[in-house]
């Protein structure tokens, strides 16, 4: 009993439980969900699909976990995806050129440079958010709403209102390629996760982020530059969104300023919340958020594979999310555990009335 209690105290316990529940559901109700096939040396199947499609969401949840840990939020990540996808596509894009009937791979600028520029743009966008919030003291939801709304416009300007199709094949590797039989995107997520985890665990940044989110005023007195910490986390969030933008544009081989990453910020915030991170800041766990992102992607994939009519998929998703959130709510769980306590109190009461 003690062991179980200790286990449930870990932040990651409940998101993993949720993931297992979704998987159990699939085990019984979705035929062939766990089937893995090997085609052309790559693995195929629903599980692989979840990992591949969930990669952008996982990336976003890494950055957002840090932002939310400082007590803020970033609702501009969807727009940052659109902008970086547009930048990447217009730099890589190019035209289809045939030489002797064979397609030549031509880019406007060399691909590494294009990606570098894209990520620099994403970092700048993150810094813009950070500056508004840390230096000018604008409320995070409002400050990032500016970029959320304006960002799609900026993306439109870059694509000149068109959907830019990418013809440069090597670029497709990021979002659609395979390494060691697994989607390459998951390796990118792994590398980003590793770097960020090293950054927060091997330096004092993790401690400073938690302290700032938990009590900004006390942190200032303890010598922490809370404004710099905020600038850093919004910049990281921007960078993560930029990488997600590259993955998405690579996966769909185009940049759609209107629809790339549309509403994904809501899923990302949900992923962080499902990871058991407090929306008011303080203690956080990035791995828990990653599991949260996987839960959301699993639900989405499950709903498609069991054939829920498209018009009600969102309702079904909402219901599942509510159930999982209730499971995670300490107050909700307490309602059961305090039953025994109540019983004790009631016994005394009964004695009283008799």
């Amino acid at each position: 009993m003690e062991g179980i209690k200790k286990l449930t105290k870990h932040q990651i316990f409940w998101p993993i439980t949720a993931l297992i529940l979704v998987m159990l559901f699939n085990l019984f109700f979705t035929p062939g969900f766990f089937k893995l096939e090997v085609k052309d040396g790559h693995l195929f199947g629903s599980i692989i699909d979840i990992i591949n499609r969930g990669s952008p969401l996982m990336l976003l949840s890494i950055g957002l976990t840090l932002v939310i840990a400082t007590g803020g939020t970033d609702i501009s990540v969807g727009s940052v995806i659109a902008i970086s996808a547009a930048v990447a596509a217009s730099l890589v894009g190019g035209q289809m050129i045939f030489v002797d009937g064979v397609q030549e791979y031509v880019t406007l600028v060399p691909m590494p440079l294009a990606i570098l520029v894209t990520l620099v743009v994403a970092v700048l966008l993150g810094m813009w958010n950070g500056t508004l919030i840390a230096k000018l003291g604008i409320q995070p939801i409002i400050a990032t709403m500016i970029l959320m709304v304006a960002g799609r416009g900026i993306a439109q300007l870059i694509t000149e209102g068109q959907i830019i199709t990418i013809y440069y094949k090597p670029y497709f590797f990021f979002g659609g390629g395979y390494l060691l039989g697994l989607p390459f995107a998951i390796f990118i997520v792994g590398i980003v996760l590793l770097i960020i985890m090293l950054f927060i665990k091997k330096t004092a940044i993790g401690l400073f982020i938690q302290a700032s989110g938990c009590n900004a005023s006390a942190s200032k007195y303890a010598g922490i530059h809370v404004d710099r910490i905020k600038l850093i986390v919004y910049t990281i969030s921007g960078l993560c969104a930029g990488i997600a933008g590259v993955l998405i544009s690579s996966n769909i081989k185009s940049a759609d300023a209107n629809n790339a990453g549309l509403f994904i910020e809501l899923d990302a915030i949900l992923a962080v919340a499902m990871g058991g991170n407090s929306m008011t800041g303080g203690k956080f766990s990035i791995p828990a958020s990653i599991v949260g992102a996987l839960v959301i992607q699993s639900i989405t994939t499950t709903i498609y594979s069991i054939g829920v009519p498209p018009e009600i998929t969102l309702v079904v998703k909402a219901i599942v999310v509510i159930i999982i959130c209730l499971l995670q709510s300490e107050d909700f769980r307490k309602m059961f555990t305090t039953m025994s306590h109540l019983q004790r109190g009631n016994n005394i009461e009964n004695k009283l009335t008799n």
Partner: protein
Amino acid sequence: MKSENTLLTMKNICKYFTGVKALVNVDFTLREGEIHALMGENGAGKSTLIKVLTGVEKLDEGEIHLLGQHVLPKSTHEAQSIGISTVYQEVNLCSNLSVAENIFIGREPMKFGRIDWKTMHKRARTALEKLNVDIDVSQTLDSYSVAIQQMVAIARAVDVDAKVLILDEPTSSLDEKEVEKLFEIMTKLKNEGIGIVFVTHFLDQVYAVCDRITVLRNGEFVGEYEIKDLPKVKLVAKMIGKDYEELNASIKGSDSQDDEAHSNKEVFLEAKQLGKKNEIEPYDVIVYKGEVLGLAGLLGSGRTEMAKLLFGAEKPDTGELCLEGSKKNIITPLQAIKNEIAYCPENRKIDGIIPDLSVRENIILALQSKRGWMKYIKRSEQEKIANDYIKLLSIKTSSAEKMVKELSGGNQQKVILARWLLTQPKLLILDEPTRGIDIGTKTEIQRLVIELANKGMSVIFISSELDEMLRTCSRMVVLRDRVKIAELTGDKLETNVIMNTIAGGN
């Protein structure tokens, strides 16, 4: 003689929180028309006992009888309806509503389905008149002082036909005159036959108004005493389980060294015309090595503002600061920390602790920012530091990994002290370090301050309690209305002189 009729009995009260015994077999009796002090250090179980009585917490074992009837309030509302009213430490009324509305909130007199304002105002006025308070009841509550707000809270509590009135630390935000007024009211209510439970940290007040005392320690019942049978010293001994005289003597012992002239001491800090508009007028101050300098003055006199400028928490707009002879520009706390200055802020909850972080993380925080984010202190080193300081300051916690918000106020304060001592400051600024802390810890902190000074650390000590300042400080700066008005040393360090200087008389 007072009536001897028993009003309330609580017998064998037990309350457990998961794994912790908060109350074990506690007895409490209250007579009609008496003021009964409930005493104990932080964490002794006073608040839990009150919570059980007022229905905030459910008791696990025991019985409560009110006027011979077996009762078990399940909510504060129910407690009120059977005649048990509570006034809490922090006034919990709606400051944006009128005085009358506050008194009658939730039970407004109605007429034709609408609130009968006329009756409400009239009844509010009579309720307050009973307490000798004459104010305009249609004004919003926040237009009156905290003291008046407290009276309104009491008026509300008594107006619901209370038989038992619980006052939980009602005097902590009142000045001396207001306290006197409160005591008048308490005596008046007592004469009307109401039983009053009085919880306070101030011993003098207990002896000023109370009839009997119940002492709790560590959730256990220590005893119930008539006030005349229990001198102050014995009360303290009962509360902390130690001999107060002994504690006091150990502090006083070091006083003898204070007579040394300051002329042969080295200067650590010198501020010249340091000031900030609307915060504090430009001031000069010198802090010597190894002295305890007190900043005396009323709340809001500029004590805290003065300290904040020295720590860089506020940016000065005039003057300069010299540390050990060289001019420094300190405009952020981090710069102050790097220059070996530490500051324990006045408001522990808001500016001190990081509630959700562990004791360990709270302790190492300032040292970490002093070293910079790149040089992360190794986990094993952190644990060693934390455990060392937990031992050194005898912080009561089950482990260094416990969240600091789960500690009692006194222990939280020790954690903050540990945080700053760890940075090995040359100047330690303590702003109200003993507020809301039990006597045992208070004495420990005072003793620590003197020890540190003897080892050569400079300390700036700010406190509202003159006693405490006199005990620890060897020199005092007095402030009034955001201006530094005097510096007192030697035989001028005496209660009357200081009081007069603060008040502005001679």
